């Protein structure tokens, strides 16, 4: 017997469905008493109900999976199930229930099929069947995760997928918009670079000059919004993700101000490009095969020849 109490508080969200007046009344009663109702409660509420009618109604509700039955002391209690659960239970077997619960627990982040398999201990073919069936009944849905192109995660049908699954502003139909990100990356840098190059605040000393090159993420955000290059509305957090990539490009540094907001500035590299990569052998794709004898040698080398003739 299912003694699960955890959905008791969700009953208010229940959709009303078409029932005959007696069962509807019982359901209404159960909604008022989330902890469960006893036979006695029903008799008090509906004194003229015949015991046989009552038994029929309750049996029907139990069979349809609207009620859970459990024992408290010596009395039997009927408790209303979570609506979606109730619907699942309609014509669903135990395995389906287990899989459903696992997916439900995963929330809007979803869960991979592999993890469902581990948690449910079901055979792959069996699990696939169950997932298919749940999917066609629209209890769950499969969402392509942006984390890995071929990976799908499952979640309840009515949930809005988490950002980590959809990728937020940077994804359209689960496709990463690389070009859009690149353009924003370049534009943000352009903004910061211009800000740096236009500051010539010598009068107030080098620190003032340095500080003047910082821009808040809001400033950058405003610049990008005004450019009008984005079809979707970007948040400041979205833009900070882009600014972050500039930090990893080694072009920008970040400072967190005392009030917790982020400031960014374009920096100059410590060194010019490394001497090694000015050499054909520094960037050569076949260097590993290059030695004194054979087809790839420094003397026959076409890369060097081309570079010499540049």
């Amino acid at each position, binding site marked *: 017997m299912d003694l699960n109490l955890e959905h008791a508080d969700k009953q208010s969200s229940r959709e009303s469905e078409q029932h005959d007046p007696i069962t509807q009344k019982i359901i209404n009663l159960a909604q008022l008493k989330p902890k469960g109702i006893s036979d006695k409660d029903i008799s008090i509420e509906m004194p003229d109900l015949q015991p046989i009618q009552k038994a029929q109604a309750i049996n029907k509700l139990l069979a349809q999976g609207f009620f859970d039955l459990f024992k408290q002391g010596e009395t039997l209690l009927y408790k209303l199930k979570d609506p979606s659960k109730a619907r699942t239970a309609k014509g669903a077997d135990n395995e389906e229930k287990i899989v459903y619960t696992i997916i439900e627990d995963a929330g809007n982040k979803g869960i991979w099929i592999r993890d469902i398999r581990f948690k449910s201990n079901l055979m792959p073919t069996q699990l696939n069947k169950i997932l298919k069936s749940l999917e066609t009944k629209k209890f769950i849905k499969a969402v392509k995760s942006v984390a890995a192109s071929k990976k799908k995660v499952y979640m309840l049908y009515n949930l809005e997928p988490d950002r980590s699954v959809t990728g937020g502003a940077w994804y359209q139909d689960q496709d990463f918009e690389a070009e859009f990100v690149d353009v924003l990356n370049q534009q943000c840098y352009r903004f910061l670079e211009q800000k740096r190059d236009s500051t010539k605040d010598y009068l107030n000393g080098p620190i003032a000059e340095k500080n003047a090159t910082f821009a808040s993420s809001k400033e950058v955000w405003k610049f990008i919004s005004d450019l009008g290059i984005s079809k979707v509305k970007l948040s400041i957090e979205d833009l900070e993700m882009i600014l972050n990539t500039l930090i990893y490009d080694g072009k920008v540094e970040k400072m967190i101000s005392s009030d917790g907001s982020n400031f960014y500035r374009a920096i100059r590299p410590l060194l010019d490009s490394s001497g090694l990569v*000015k050499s054909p052998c520094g960037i050569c794709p076949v260097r590993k095969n290059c030695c004194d004898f054979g087809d790839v040698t420094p003397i026959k080398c076409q890369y060097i020849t081309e570079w010499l003739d540049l």
Partner: protein
Amino acid sequence: MSLIFEKLCKNLLLEHFGLIIQTVASDMFQHGPRTLNQMKVTTKHPISKIKESLCVLIKFGYVVYEQTDRGIVYTLDVEKVITILRYPRYMYFVKTFCGDEAEMMLEDVLKNGYERASQIIVKTYQRLEQFPPERRSTVPVLKEKFDLLVKNQFLMRSLCSNTLSDVPTDKPDFNMPSLNVKALTRLIQGNEVDAGDNNIYWKINNDRFTQDLRDQILVKSIAKRIDDNAGELMRQLLYLMYLRTASWADTSIPIPVTEIKEAMKKNFPSILPYLDQYLRIIEEDSSKFIERVGDSGGGQYSVNMKEAFHQLTWVVLENIVMERFGLKAARIFRLVHRHKYIEQEKIQQIAMIPAKEAKHLTYTLLEENYLQIQELKKPGLSTAPTKIFFLFHIDLNQVARMTIEHCYHALYNIIQRRDYEINSNKRMIDKQLRMQTLTSNMKEHGATEEQLAEIAEMMTPSEKLQLEKVQERIKKLGANEFSIDETLFILQMYIRYHR
């Protein structure tokens, strides 16, 4: 020691000293410390030739010897041999700091290993006579230039007793003998006189050059990152470090701000109003070259050489990754560096690179050994198999060493190619040399314009064109060696401080 390093060293020895010396050195390369007789057996050269070769190598400081019960044992100092590569940079350095004449003098020492001051001055004087009058120098000027070289410790006295056991007590000696200017002039005229420096020989002070090149990198970097004022300040800080700290210490003994102020007042007064600000900017910069180590007496700063080369090495490697594998690969490389250990999925998320591309780049970097991977087993539920995480990270030391090998390989290849370009055009290059000598001889004997034009016509226009092209190529290859060595130097410094 890697094969390519050995080949590079042999190549350098061959280029500078010829075949016999190279085979003698190679023998020590292959077998380690050797006695004279052992070398005779393997190299098949007569003892006299081997002795001669060893003599040269010892003079240059590439070989040290030691008395053992097997007799005298000779050892090749490979770290020294590789510095041959750096001679052009030494010359360039001296040229910018002490002028053209000093560069010529240094070149003389580099060619001969060791030399007397009087000889150096005489030879330089005679070489300058070939130039137009405005470039010539007088003996007193040349003597001054030589003094300057010694004062800057680019040259030191050669005691020529490089016995291994002697080395620690072998304190560098920079005492200038008093040279007689009159005697120098007479020497130039071809007379046998004593200029006052019999038996006093000078050799190159490798360590000084290494330190100067090292310091120059720090100054340049700060100037590039911040501005020229900051660069100048960095230069003074390094000088103040030098005054109080052992040459190769990781960090300097604390330098009080008052002293920095004093030094700047003397050398760079325009910075004074903003001195404190500049110190703070350098200190706060992510390059971490200096750190504030105390507040007493207006504050104290310390230069952190070890950290500086740690940071510079990252910059070098990031740049190499960018040039070899592209901007996105460099982004991933930096990202892994920042996070120390990170999963593939996190990488693509933070780097904002499409999953497929990110994976491809990450695995390319892994394959090329710029990234390393680590397995992390995390025991899962009893029913589920153990979950394995693959975390990417960077072993800086390993990547730096690998890149040093890369530099050796590139240098070896470029030198090979340069030799080839020279050899395959040898006939023409020789012809040009002959023509040059002929022309200058004829000029001395008062040849007419016509006669000179006749010599010039010995070379056809197409030959001239070809020659120009070859010379261009040789120059470009030479400059390329110079560039590669810049990268090599920074990485070597890193290894030196992080051994």
